[in-house]
Structure formats: structure tokens, C-alpha cells
């Protein structure tokens, strides 16, 4: 029986629920989200309640993670970016755990759903726009004009910048979705080959499957990291419009 490599991404409603006409049925992806939320909550709350000066393993890991995200925020946004720390750290953890848990055979990769990544991307980008207009008012439209642009270039530069701005949420969403999907498709194809190759030749693609799985773990980290860094960069852009007003607050 030949399976489509996209078969693992199919969803089936287990428990059909409707909330005021809105379909919020429970499916595999939703259950995986719950698992992820539960897992992160338990680990982080346990690590957070340890509060030992000389940390244990779990506390060390959590602290490393927190310090890592704090480093990203401080590098890209500076000290006042720390007010977004809970949001950005949660985002990083959620995406990372979704990516990683999806690698367990039989589970589901929530972040391989374009709509999931799109919601994150839109929320992040929307937040950066809101922050920008709140902090700078109408001057925030200046983000469409790179510093030092001569006046006669404005008709050219503004549309280009507009497009690059609009590409931000799209690229953010598509990058994560495509990476997660592609990795699982490759794994699926390789494993399909291993099955159909039989014992004689099938060990080769099977070995590749194992290697690919290791690579996918790395990609899971890298994509979560990239998403977080870009989030910080976009928010940082909104904070420091062209870096002009670094002293403004």
C-alpha cells in the first residue's frame, strides 16, 4: 500500500465541538498543543520553584533557556525589550516543544500547520505595529523610509519597503511551516523507501532516516531560534525606529 508522504499531516476530528457556530473540534494537533502546554508548564514551574542557588539539572536547563532568550532580547532590543520577555520566552518554548515533540513517531507536528505559524507571525507582527504606533505615533510610518534616502527616490523606496514589511509576517509563517513540513516529508519518504526496499536494500534509507531524524532535532531548535530572533528584531525595529531615538526612552 503506497502512502502519500503528506499523509502524516492529515487531521481528523476526534470530538466535534462547536462554540457559537465556530468549529473548535478536538483533533490530533489540538491534543499535541495540550501535551506541549502541559509539558512546558510542568517542567518550567518545577524548575522555577526549585530556586536553588546551586541549580540541579532541570533548574540548570531552564535557567540556560531563560538566559539564552534574555541574551537574544538584550542583543536585539536592549534593556527595555525585557518587558516582552514572558511573551517571547513562551513563544520560543511553545514552538521548540511543538517542533521536538513532532519528531516522535506517531505524534503530530503542530508547527507544520501553516495556520498555526501564521497566527504566531501575525500576532508578532501586529504587536510590533501596535508598539510602533503607540511609541512613535504617525512618525512610525517613517519605517517605510530608510534613513538617508534622497527625496527623489521616495516613490521607489516606499513601495519596496512596504513590500518588505508585508513580507515579514508571511516569511515568518512560511519559513517555520515549510521547514517542519519538508523535514517530515523527507522522513516519510525515506521511511517509505526503507519499508518498500525490504531487508536487502531497505537498511540504507532506514539509516538515512535515523540521520535525518538527528538533523531534524537540530532544525527544530534552529527554527524556534530563528522565529524568536526575528520576533525580537521586528519588535526592536518598532522600538528604535531606525535606531534614531535610542535615547528617547
Amino acid at each position, binding site marked *: 500500500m503506497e502512502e502519500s508522504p503528506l499523509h502524516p499531516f492529515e487531521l481528523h*476530528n476526534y470530538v466535534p465541538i462547536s462554540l457559537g457556530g465556530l468549529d473548535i473540534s478536538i483533533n490530533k494537533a489540538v491534543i499535541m498543543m495540550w501535551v506541549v502546554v502541559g509539558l512546558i508548564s510542568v517542567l518550567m514551574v518545577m524548575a522555577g520553584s526549585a530556586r536553588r542557588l546551586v541549580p540541579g539539572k532541570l533548574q540548570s536547563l531552564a535557567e540556560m533557556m531563560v538566559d539564552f532568550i534574555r541574551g537574544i532580547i538584550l542583543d536585539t532590543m536592549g534593556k527595555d525589550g525585557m518587558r516582552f520577555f514572558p511573551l517571547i520566552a513562551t513563544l520560543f518554548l511553545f514552538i521548540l516543544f511543538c517542533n521536538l515533540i513532532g519528531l516522535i513517531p506517531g505524534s503530530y507536528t503542530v508547527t507544520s500547520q501553516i495556520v498555526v505559524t501564521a497566527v504566531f507571525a501575525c500576532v508578532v507582527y501586529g504587536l510590533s505595529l501596535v508598539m510602533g504606533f503607540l511609541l512613535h505615533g504617525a512618525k512610525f510610518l517613517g519605517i517605510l523610509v530608510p534613513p538617508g534616502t534622497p527625496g527623489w527616490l521616495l516613490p521607489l523606496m516606499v513601495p519596496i519597503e512596504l513590500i518588505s514589511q508585508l513580507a515579514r509576517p508571511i516569511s515568518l509563517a512560511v519559513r517555520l511551516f515549510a521547514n517542519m513540513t519538508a523535514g517530515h516529508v523527507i522522513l516519510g519518504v525515506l521511511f517509505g523507501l526503507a519499508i518498500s526496499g525490504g531487508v536487502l536494500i531497505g537498511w540504507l534509507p532506514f539509516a538515512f532516516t535515523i540521520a535525518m531524524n538527528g538533523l531534524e532535532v537540530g532544525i527544530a531548535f534552529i527554527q524556534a531560534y530563528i522565529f524568536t530572533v526575528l520576533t525580537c528584531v521586528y519588535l526592536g525595529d518598532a522600538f528604535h525606529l531606525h535606531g534614531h531615538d535610542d535615547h528617547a526612552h
Partner: protein
Amino acid sequence: MPQFESHFFSSLIFWEVVSFAILLFVLYKFAFPGILSVLEEREKKIKDSLDQAERHRSEAERKLKEYEAKLNAAAKEAEGILAAAKERAQRLLEENEQRLTTEAERIKGDATREIDHERRKAIQEIRAQTTELALMVAEKVVQRSLNEADHRRLADEALDALTKSAAR
């Protein structure tokens, strides 16, 4: 692609937002404050320890300098004391020498005087005794041999001597 089947979108978006909100709340409320405070605490502790170590180091350095200075001063003082003691000893020595010399001189003088005195006394004594002895001898001689004729002659001689001395 199954990911573009839009009839799952509503439930995915809804549950994503709900799960994320719950996770954000839980972490914000129960996890991050603890972890961040521990990190800050540790940072502070490390910084404090380093500061303290630096303070101790400078303190130790200061103490070392102080002790070195004290040691130098003590060495100088000891040198001074030694020099003074040497000088004093020298002076005492000289003084003693002088004193002893004068004493010796004095003793010598005394002794000389005493010897002189004794000698003189001895001479006098000898003279006195000699005179006494002579007188005694003379008396004995005189008692034994002085007879009438001698008496007469002696008286005559005395008279002669008297008259001679009167005549002169």
C-alpha cells in the same frame, strides 16, 4: 496539501490561542519570576563575591604595605638603638677607663704618700729609738765608769764649754 484544508483552521486557531494564553499565564505567573529571580540573585551573589574578593585583596595589600613599613621602621629603630647602645658602651668604656686611670693614679698617689709617711715615721721612730738606745747605752756606760775624777773632769769640761760660749 492537508495543511490547507481550511475547515480545520477555526479549531486550530482557537486552540492555539487558548493553549498559548494558558501557557503564557502559567509561565508568567509561576515559572519565570522564580527563574529570573534566581538568575539575578546568583548574578548579584557572584558580583558581590568578586567585589568582596577584590576588597579583601586590596585590604591584604594595604596591610602588607603597612607591615612592611612597620618592619622597616622597626629595623631602623633597632639600628638606632644599636648605634645608641654602641655609642653608650663606648662612652662608658672611655669613662670607665678614665675613671680607673684617675683612681689608679689616686691610689698610686695615696700609696706613695702613705709609703712616704710610713718611711718618715719609721725613720723618726728609728731615730727616737736610736737616741733612746744611745742614751740607755750612755747611761749604762756612764753609771758603770763615771767616778769621782771623771765627774770632776766632766764638770770642768762643761764649765769650759760654758765659759767659752759665754766668752764668744
